[in-house]
């Protein structure tokens, strides 16, 4: 029998939703010599009642979270170190009796997770910046926004399709409405559809998710009526193919080579299908404008499309295209957030490099 664990402490697991108790202990004296393979935890509702096994931990471990407690009930804990030879065999009751008891402890739920206070402060600062600049813009303050090449080209791309008398394709990604990139993608669709309606060019939107089908249809319809051509809108402009990533890619590839659209937009969340779509579009000589927040797919769009909105630019696109002051204000607020991050990085690097203060822990997100 390995020597018993010298000290155990128990506490209600802090910052949680209840139902859990944290048990901490010091490793058994036999740990170093390799005489311990696992620690087995026992629990009881009375100090000298029947102790039941609630879980085990590997050697070297010094904490265990028992996530099966009932809030408000008092518990006592024991911990028994086991050598390798005892694994899989019943633990002798004497070993359990010999172990120290810790407790009582009861679990409870908390109303605020204090470990996340830094996230709260950060989010609040950023949101305050954004809201402040939105209000500034609303009040009529002029805001400068730099040129974004990919978005400057939208007009030209739609215009070219008109000249050539060919279609425009708009691909809003392959993810569903529970992805902000898709939401950004369909928002941009609204602006593009308005342009297409003005230019009287046929815009086709094949989608791969039913919720996107519903949303995109509403958006395109609204855009057509905003452009003053509600009669030109056809329901089947927006149509569903399949939820399947590659089935969708196969379908669009076929449509692209057969109908040869003059312009293709890719805006939203993409996975591996990005290059399949963009290369096929490229092979028929379409103007292609892409935008995604998928870091792993950006290189392919950069290689195969004429213009690519990189990451954050995708989320700025709807504001940029709409030129609505309120939306542009939010971009300015975002930039202030960025400026603050840059300052934090410089200050932090200086403080840490010269060993003055561990600045980065301010940004630590709880384990």
């Amino acid at each position, binding site marked *: 029998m390995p020597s018993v664990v010298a000290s155990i402490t128990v506490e209600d697991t802090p910052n949680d939703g209840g139902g859990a108790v944290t048990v901490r202990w010091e490793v058994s004296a036999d740990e170093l010599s390799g005489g311990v393979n696992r620690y087995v935890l026992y629990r009881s509702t009375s100090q000298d009642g029947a102790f039941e096994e609630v879980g085990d931990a590997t050697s070297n471990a010094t904490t265990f979270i028992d996530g099966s407690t009932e809030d408000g009930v008092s518990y006592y804990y024991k911990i028994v170190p086991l050598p390798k030879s005892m694994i899989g065999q019943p633990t002798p009751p004497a070993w359990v009796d010999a172990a120290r008891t810790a407790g009582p402890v009861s679990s409870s739920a908390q109303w605020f997770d204090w470990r996340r206070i830094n996230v709260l402060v950060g989010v609040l600062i950023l949101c305050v910046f954004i809201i402040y600049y939105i209000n500034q813009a609303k009040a009529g303050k002029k805001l400068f926004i*730099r040129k974004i090449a990919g978005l400057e080209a939208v007009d030209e791309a739609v215009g070219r399709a008109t000249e050539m008398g060919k279609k425009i394709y708009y691909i809003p990604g392959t993810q569903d409405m529970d992805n902000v990139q898709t*939401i950004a993608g369909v928002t941009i669709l609204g602006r593009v559809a308005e342009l297409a309606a003005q230019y009287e060019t046929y815009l086709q939107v094949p989608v791969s998710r039913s919720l996107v089908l519903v949303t995109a249809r509403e958006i395109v319809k609204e855009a057509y009526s905003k452009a003053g051509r509600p009669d030109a809108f056809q329901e089947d402009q927006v149509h569903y193919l399949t939820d399947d990533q590659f089935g969708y890619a*196969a379908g669009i590839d076929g449509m692209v080579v057969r109908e040869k659209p003059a312009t293709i937009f890719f805006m939203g969340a993409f996975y591996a299908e990005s290059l399949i779509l963009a290369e096929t579009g490229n092979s028929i000589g379409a103007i292609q404008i892409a935008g995604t927040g998928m870091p792993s797919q950006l*290189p392919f769009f950069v290689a195969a499309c004429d213009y690519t909105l990189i990451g954050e630019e995708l989320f700025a696109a709807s504001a940029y295209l709409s030129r609505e002051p309120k939306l542009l204000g939010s971009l300015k607020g975002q930039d202030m957030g960025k400026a603050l*991050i840059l300052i934090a990085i410089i200050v932090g690097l200086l403080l840490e490099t010269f060993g003055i203060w561990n600045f980065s*822990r301010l940004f630590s997100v709880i384990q």
Partner: protein
Amino acid sequence: MFWEHFAVWVAAFLTLGIYSFLYKDNPWYKLCESIFVGISAGYWFVTLFWDNIYGKFWVGVFPPTHVNELGESVRTAQPDYWLLVGAVLGLLMLLRLVPKIGWLSRWSLAFIVGATAGFYLINYFSSNVMRQVQDTIMPLFGSGFDASAYVIIGNIVVAVGTFTGLIYFFFSKEHRGAFGFSAKVGIFFLMVTFGASFGYTVMSRMSLLIGRIDFLLSDWLGLIR
């Protein structure tokens, strides 16, 4: 026996049909494409029905019962009535099919978009902004000035790259002068990133092709031992 041969031939026929697209669009590809669209749409249709509507909703609200040792029939789990909210949202969505009250589906959509916005706002802020900033801030020369030249140069590159890369994304300031120069350096870093990711991906994509060709040459034709 027949089905085994038939199966591998079907698979090979479809594989070659898709590859024929590389030559040009053709009836064989069109056939495979149509089968693919139909089969995959049906696959997800069936899967979502059994996994989500049946497996998640129905079983969740009406847990199956089983007979225990005492001969009593007991539920395997507590019914979760919260799932009914999901069913209501789903039914609102289906109202699309009724033109007059189709607009009610917007409530359901509004719920999804709101939840997504809230969830992503906080999740991306904590895991991308906080975490990445935390990782960027570090002692450049190692804690205790003991890092090797390799690591020091690397650390400086990461710091400069992250910094200038972020400058590139500034929208409300013209990229001119020193600021413009930093943004330019930022683009250089983005380009290296794209090149490197692309190069890395080549490997992944080639592996997929190796897998397919291995299927054709060994599973189908048995040319490779």
